[in-house]
Every structure is written in C-alpha cells, then in structure tokens.
C-alpha cells in the first residue's frame, strides 16, 4: 500500500471551505482546546505536554515538556513566551503554511502554552520577508481579542495574556533563540553565551522565557484536544505526532507534506513522486541547509551495528539521527545526478557567510573562507590541496563558537567532502571554469 499523508495540523489548511478567518476556525471546533485548558491546572497541562513526547519542531528536537519544566518559576519575574516564526533555514517553508492558512491554530496553541506556563505576555517573532503573514497574524489576534480569546480575563477565567507581533529585518541569526531575544530587546541579534543565558532562566529582559517554534505550538492544541493517550498513538516512540516536511529541489512533486514516520523510499516515491524523469537521486539534505547530506548510494550503520540503505532511513528525528544527520527544521532539499555537488556547497556556504553575525572569529572568518574556496573551485583559481584545506578548516569552526551556527558552516562542508570526495578532487585539480548547475556569476566570490 502506498504511503500517504496524515494531516492533523494541516487538516483544513488547503481545503476550499477553509479560510484564515476566526469563523472558519470556530466552525471546525477551534478554541475548544483553550476552553478545556482554562478549566485545568497549569501544572497538569505542563505534565500532559511532557507525557505527549512532543519534541521541538524548530531545529534541535528538544522535548517541549522538559523545556517548559526548566522555566524558573521562583524568581518572581514575569515569564515570557516567544513564538519563533523566523523560518529562515534554507529549505524550510512549513511555518509559512501554518501562519498564512491557519493562524488561529497557532494563536490557540500560544494561549494554551501561555496559560500552562503562567505567561502574561507573548510575542511572535516573524521574519521580515513574510509581510503578509504578519498582517494575517495581526488580524487574527484582533479577531480573537474581540471574542475574548486573547487579552484580559480570557473567557471569564481570570487569566489574561496578550500577544504582540514583532517583525524581523532580514537576518537569519534571529532564528537562534538568544539572538532572537536580543533582537526583541532592540539590540543587534548577537546570540548570547550559554551558560548562563539559558532563556528558561535568563531570557527576554533577563526574565524566564520560553521560545518555541510555530509548529511545536500548533501541536500543543492537538495534545490538549486529543489527550495524551490518543496523541502518543501518532508517530512512534520518541517521535510522537506528525511532522510537516518541506521538500524542494530535484524531485517530481516538491511541497509540504504532513506525515507520520515512514521510510525514505515511501516518502520520496509514494508521497513526493520520485525523481524527475530520467534522473537519479544523488542525496538529500534532510533538515535544512545546515544539516549533513545523506547520500542516496550510501550504506548506513546504526548504533547497534546494523546496516541499512538510504531508502530504509526512517523519516523522523531518530531515523535521520541514526543515519548520522539531523531532522533539524524538516526542510528537505533533494539533489539528483544533474546537480554538481561542489556548486551546491558553494551556494550553501555563501548563505552562511552572509548570515554569520560576526561575533565569533571561527564562524565569521571560517564561513567567509569556505565561501571563497568553494567559489574558486567552481569559477577558477582553485588548487588541488584546496579540498583538504577546506575540510580541515571546517573542523576548526563547530564547537568553538557562541551559538550552534558554527556547525552550520561545518557540517555541510565536512559531509559533502566525505561523501563526494571524487567530485571535489576532480574539480579542484581540473580547475575548471565552466559551471554545471548554476551560472558562474551567481556564485559570489
């Protein structure tokens, strides 16, 4: 039987009967979860989210319930909730769908999460490049406020909480939670060092702060509506719930697909239609541009020593981790045999060089030099030893920086070279100038 989608968060989003209006949402039983939650004790809600196994959908996949349990509730300071809608990891476009097509689901998820964590003020940090999304959210918040679902004394419960939409201004690093917090404070978004600046203790205005991704917060609605027992039946142990995967690049049917865990073969063929006519998959970047590439011809070995193929990789947190990469932001970029791997790396390194905040020398200089070296491999002027140089340099960035973005400049370089070394060598040795996948002027030198 062909594998198919399982739509929970996106159940109504693309249906003809549905619109982003509050009436549409209410018609489908919207805000029942919030009503239910307001009748419960906040600590019970926190416990339920923990028991649901819900993991963060923003990148690291950390347990949402445990994150909430780390919040400092004794400090007496206000607790803030920030929804991370910076969505700028290359290959990721799921939060865009959730915000544009079903904003009230997010608002309900935020209000439940805010109530569960005694939050009095919540924010949505939305990237500048989604101006329409910001407008839709503003309007939805107004609609919800008019129905007393946001604001003072929500539904007569005595609980009050407002939501403020805050727009970014085009910097990827604002997606990193502490960079985001600095930006919310009106400063340059330089990520903060952890410890001591764990947001749960010292976040926005040095107060305890929860930062969660859009998709994570939308899931909270369904945890409450379904109850822990039903929710944990979706997915598999340690990977509960559905995930929305964003598929782009060299594949027949690119798009966003909400699925339960399935194999890579089922996903790429049954759901995404397979490769383009006459082509073969070369590999996939599974969780946004930062993540290590998974080669289509590779043999993988899990921790128990069992080997498996690309087709057998399970598309979820643990399945992709077992193959040595990460599911990250679930942005899946597909490369095929027409794609020049060195050019692909040159494109990706240009992104990270552009987006490094510049605070740490290894990331600032390293990302710039990886960009320069990969560019010269593509456009002329490379030397045969450049491949080793690039590889060594990458090994000196990750883990030596303030924020995990150091790894974003490291992992692509290391994994592409490890898995496609021949192509790098032949390109560096031949010192070719012709571009195969892209146009030469477009790889910035």
């Amino acid at each position, binding site marked *: 039987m062909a594998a198919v989608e399982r739509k929970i968060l996106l159940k109504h989003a693309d249906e003809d009967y549905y619109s982003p209006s509050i009436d549409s949402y209410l018609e489908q039983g919207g805000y029942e979860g919030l009503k239910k939650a307001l009748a419960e004790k906040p600590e019970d809600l926190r416990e339920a989210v923990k028991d649901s196994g819900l993991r963060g959908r923003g990148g690291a996949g950390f347990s949402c319930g445990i994150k909430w349990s780390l919040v400092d509730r004794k400090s007496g300071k206000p607790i803030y909730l920030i929804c991370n809608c910076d969505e700028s990891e290359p290959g990721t476009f799921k939060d865009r769908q959730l915000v544009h097509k079903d904003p009230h689901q997010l608002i309900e998820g935020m209000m439940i999460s805010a109530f569960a964590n005694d939050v009095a003020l919540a924010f949505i940090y939305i990237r500048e490049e989604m101006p329409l999304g910001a407008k839709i959210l503003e309007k939805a918040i107004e609609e919800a406020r008019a129905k007393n679902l946001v604001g003072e004394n929500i539904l007569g419960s005595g609980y009050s909480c407002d939501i403020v939409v805050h727009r970014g201004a*085009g910097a990827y690093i604002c997606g990193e939670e502490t960079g985001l917090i600095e930006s919310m404070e009106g400063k340059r978004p330089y990520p903060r060092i952890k410890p001591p600046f764990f947001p749960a203790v010292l976040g926005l205005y040095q107060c305890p702060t929860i930062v969660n991704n859009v998709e994570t917060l939308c899931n909270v609605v369904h945890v409450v509506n379904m109850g822990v027992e039903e929710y944990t039946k979706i997915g598999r142990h340690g990977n509960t719930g559905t995930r929305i995967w964003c*598929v782009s690049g060299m594949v027949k049917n*690119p798009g966003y697909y909400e699925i339960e865990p399935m194999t890579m073969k089922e996903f790429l063929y049954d759901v995404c239609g397979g490769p383009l006519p006459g082509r073969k998959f070369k590999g996939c970047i599974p969780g946004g541009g930062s993540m290590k590439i998974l080669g289509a011809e590779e043999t993988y070995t899990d921790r128990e020593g069992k080997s498996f193929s690309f087709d057998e990789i399970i598309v979820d947190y643990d399945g992709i981790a077992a193959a040595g990469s990460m599911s990250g932001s679930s942005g899946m970029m597909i490369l095929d045999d027409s794609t020049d791997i060195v050019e692909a790396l040159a494109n990706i390194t240009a992104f990270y060089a552009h987006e490094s905040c510049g605070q740490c020398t290894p990331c600032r200089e390293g990302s710039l030099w990886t960009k320069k070296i990969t560019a010269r491999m593509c456009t002329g002027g490379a030397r045969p030893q450049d491949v080793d140089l690039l590889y060594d340099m990458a090994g000196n960035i990750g883990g030596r920086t303030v924020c995990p973005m150091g790894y974003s400049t490291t992992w692509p370089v290391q994994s592409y070279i490890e898995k496609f070394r021949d192509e790098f060598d032949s390109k560096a040795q031949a010192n070719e100038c012709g571009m195969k996948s892209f146009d030469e002027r477009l790889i910035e030198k």
Partner: protein
Amino acid sequence: MNLSAETLEKIETTIPKYPEKRSAVMPLLHFVQSEQKYISNEAIEWIAEKLEIEPINVLEVVTFFPYYRQEKLGTVHVRVCRTLSCALMGAYKLGDELEKALDCKMGHTKEDGSVTLEYGECLAACGTGPVVLVDEDLYEKLNQTEAVGPMLEEIKKRAQAGAATE
C-alpha cells in the same frame, strides 16, 4: 521630522506594547522606512529620542539588518531568492532575465529611483522556487515563462505609479 499622521499614530500605539521602550526600535524603523524609503540620520536621532536611547543604539540595528537602508530604496523593491533550492530551479537565470527586462543592475537601484533589484537569501517558499518578492508580494514558480510576464507587468506598473506621485 516629517511623518504622516498615520505613521505617527502607529508609532504611538506600538511603543506601549512593549515592556521596555527600546524593544520598539525595529517596528519604528519599519514604519519610518516604509514611509521614507530609507533611514536618514535625522530619523535615527528622532527614533533614539523617542525611545530614550542613544542614536548609536539605533544605528547599530540599522547597520546590522539587511532590510534597513541608509540609501533610498527604489519605488519597487524586487528580491530574487538565490539560495540552493531556488538556485537549482533556475534562480540565477531568472536574475539575468530580470536585469535585462528591468534594465537594472543586480544589487542596485535604478538611477531614476524606480526599481531596486537584488538577490536575497531563502524566502521560505523553496517548494515553489524560484521565487521573487516584489515589495510585499511573493511570486512563485518563475522558471515557467508564463509566470514571469505578469510579475514584470506588475513591477513596471508600480514603478510608473511611483514616478507619477513623486
């Protein structure tokens, strides 16, 4: 500083939304830039005074973020995504085409101030690449010729409308 009543009102209602005034620096910059097309030194000082911070605190934000400009943006702001998924789908070729069709160099604003054409990084619409953001509107699947035409028409229309109101 000369700001429309509408912008001033937005500014006044936005500041109190934040627990600390300084947090309003980004929204204020957005409001001012959308009216004046850039952030002048005067605006930096005006915002600093409004938020009771030093001008350098505003300047550090303006100079960090790619979206804020210290030189005037064109009437129409065209951003072509050049990141991997769009690049694979032909973003670079599209960039060339737009340069020609708009008679504007990539990364520049036309001398008459009508258009700014730039490459930008991933716009979170990779499944329908290559994509272009024209002011606030997203155009998708632009490797299909029939998709580029209507976008170009819209850009030209806005550029002309801008020239008429100058």
